[in-house]
Structures are given as C-alpha cells and as structure tokens.
C-alpha cells in the first residue's frame, strides 16, 4: 500500500472512515489456523460470539456457522477453546487431545500443515 505524506492524512491519527479495519488484512500474522474436524457443528455461535476479530463466518438467515474469515483470523484459537462440541469430544475420549486432533469440531493446525 502506498504510504501518504503528512499533508494528505487526517490530523492526530484520526480515522474518519468507520469500519475500515476490514481493509487491513491481518491473516498473515497467523501461526495456527482453525479448521473443521470430524465432529458436527451444532451452530451454537459460541465461536462467533467470542472471536475477537469477527472472523467467524455465519449465514444469519439460516442460522448456520459456515467457516472462518482467514483474511483477518489471527489464529488465536479462542473459537476452539469455547466450542462446546470440542468439550464433549474430549470428555467422551477420556483423555487429553492434541488441539489438532481430527475428532474435534474446531481444530487448530499449524499454518501450512494442510493443503488449502
């Protein structure tokens, strides 16, 4: 992005356009990424509620969670932490699961470890 000179930007660092953080793609910061595992999503929207970057995609009309906005997701893993299906899968397994375990609903895998 071409950077502007001091005469061409609002004073005091003011951002005069609302919601333009969307144009700043932060997905490149990610070390881990969320992906769907085998357990079925129950569309409870806990991940959508807790995601600090508004990076959970939903189909509001049909009340479905549909995926992840990887242009902005920073890979923090909060979605996987709050997912009640993950809790259920771990409890049923009776053991500690790696966070990339395929049996989970939302699993966190290393960036670049799976094919796009």
């Amino acid at each position, binding site marked *: 992005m071409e*950077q*502007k000179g001091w005469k061409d930007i*609002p*004073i*005091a660092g*003011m*951002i005069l356009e*609302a919601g333009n953080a969307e144009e700043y793609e932060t997905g490149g910061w990610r070390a881990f990424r969320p992906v769907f595992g085998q357990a079925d999503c129950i569309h409870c929207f806990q991940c959508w509620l807790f995601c600090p970057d508004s990076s959970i995609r939903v189909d509001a009309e049909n009340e479905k969670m549909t995926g992840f906005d990887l242009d902005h997701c920073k890979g923090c893993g909060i979605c996987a932490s709050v997912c009640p299906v993950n809790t259920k899968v771990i409890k049923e397994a009776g053991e500690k699961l790696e966070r990339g375990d395929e049996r989970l609903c939302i699993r966190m895998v290393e960036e670049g470890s799976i094919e796009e």
Partner: protein
Amino acid sequence: MSTFEALSGNEAVATAMRQINPDVIAAYPITPQTSTVQKFADFVADGLVDTEFVTVESEHSAMSACVGASTAGARVMTATAANGLALMWEIVYIAASNRCPIVMSLVNRALSGPINIHTDHSDAMGIRDSGWIMMFSENGQEAYDNIIQAVRIAEHENVLLPVAICQDGFITSHGMERVEIYDDKDVKSFVGQYSAQWPLLDLENPKTFGPLDFYDYYFEHKRQQVDAMEKSQAVILDVAKEFNKKFKRDYGLFEAYRIDDAETAIVAANSTAGTAKTVVDGLRDEGLKVGLIKPRVFRPFPAKELADAMSHLKSVAVMDRSASFGAMDNAGPLFLEIVAALAVNGVQAPVVDYVYGLGGRDILTGEIEGVFRDALEIASSGRAEQTVTYLGVRE
C-alpha cells in the same frame, strides 16, 4: 460596558471562564491555582454558567477528562500548577497530539522538591516540548486577556492545539489588582461558539480517535503538529489584533519596552517584567539607555522577531526563573532559546543569564538594577566574564 474590579489573578481568570462559559471544566485543586476553580465552583453553584464542572480525583484524571470532553466536541478548560501539572504530564502530551484545543490556566509554582508552593517557572518549562502553545502574563489583566484570546487561538482551524496561559503563583494569582472586566456579551461574541470539526459524538459519522500509530505514520502526525505550531503564530497575532480592536489592549508576541534606542535590555517573563519596567524608568531618568523584552508567546518561540527587536543591542541579560540542571553552563531555558535565536539570526551581542527567584525568592528592584548595571558594563566592554549568575542566592 466594561467595569473595573479589584481582583486577584485567579479571580480574573475565573471571571474569564464564567464569561466564556465552556462546556466542560475538569480540574483538581492545587496551590496556588485552587482559588480559580473555587471561584468558578461558586459560579456553577449560582447558576451563572452551563458548564459541566467535573471534580476529578487527580490531575491525571483532570487532563484525561479534558481530552475526552474535547474529543467529544466540547469547549474545555482547566487550571493547574506545579506538581499537579507534573501529574498530568502524560496526558498533557496526548492533549496536544490528539489536537484537543483545551485552554489551561497554569499558575506557575516551583516543582518539588523540596516541596514549595511559591512561584517559579520550573513547572511551565517542564511542558515546553509537549506541543502546547504557551503564553506568559505579567499581571492579572494580562492573564484575563490571554485566557480570552487563548480560546480563539486554540480552536482556530489552522491550529487545533491546546494553550497554557501562565501567571506567577501568589504574586499575580493572589495579588489583588485593578482589572478591567469587559462586558459579558462582548467576551461571548469575541470567543463565539465552538463547533468541533470531527466531534466524537457525531454518531452519524463514527470515527476512531487516538489509535495505535507506529513507525509508518507516527512521524507524519508529529510533522503535522510542527506545522500547526508554525501556523499558530499568525493566528495569535490576528486574534490579538481583533482583541485590540474590540477591547483596546494591544498584544503581540512579546512586549518591547523602551527598547528602540537601548544599548542593553533585560529579558524577563511574567510578573518580574512589571518590576523591571519600574527599574527601566528609573535608569532612563538617569540617562541610561536600557530597555526590557517581555516574552508573551513562549511557544511557538518567536526567534526571528526577537532577534530583529534586539539586533541593535550591545548586550542582553536574560532572567530565568527556573534552572536547567546540566544544560550548557547550567543556564536556564529562556537564556538558551534567546542565545540560539540571536546566534541563528546573526546578532552578535554578548548574552548573560541570571537565574533568580527560585521557589518564590523575592526579586527586588535593586537586584534588577544591578543586572542592568552589569549589562551596561558588558555592553561597553563587549565581553562577559561569566555566563550564569545566581541572583539572590546566599553563598
């Protein structure tokens, strides 16, 4: 119709605040500023103003509340002194860099320690690089007049910077003087209504204020502050001109008192300038060619204009009411700026510094006369024996 009243400097400033009737005042009591906001609290209690008067728990909070209110789009004022200003310090910078046109009455008092409540300029000098416009006032009248003008200067679209109006603690802030108070409606029409260009409370057009600003844009925003500071000088002069037209009091960047044919001059700010004028008059009666430069606008520092006014002098004695420990020859900040201003603009006269009056130590006419006689000697010999003299300290 204006009236003449017997007022202390603080009461005069509080009266200006009543006439300006700002949207918000947030302040915390600290000597010797307290009687300003105490008097203003009376005006609030008596229903004479519409101001939201925020009594905060510290000066850090006072300036924070001022920044918040100013960002919201309000006309905002505050008052403080010394350690209170020191506690504000972090937010003092933010007020300037967020371009909040806040007006502050700064009643100059020595910074601790040892703790002291009397006047010197160490508090003001602590914020000289913060991005605030700073102006000094010789007496209560000037403090009153400067506060009224400060509102217009701060809010000017080419400026949008906070302004601190200084006066000397106790000597001016608590000394009762004859002050001309202008008609309320004339002051109100002079300051006008404030309409913020980017108010936070414009809910139809949401904006972000004070965001994180890294190496990619921070520098550009600092450059803008320099630009605003540069442009403020013309605004200060325009406002002064309009003020003079309306209220018949003439202000500039500094006052040059009996300087035209002077061989030497003292540079002194705030109340000491008043004392020095008496000394100038006495020495003039003896036929000695002495004058006075009284800085009014300290930020932006009018270097070229001062050098022009002083170009004919054969010596200059600067009087600093604060110390700058470890600076060149331990000279005071006003001296260092004057020396730089003269040097850069090719004025050759020898310049000496008199650090005086720290912690409210009296400065008497006899001492100022001694400074003039020293300076006249330097003018005739063309050289100074020492750079800094501590005037009035016991050896």
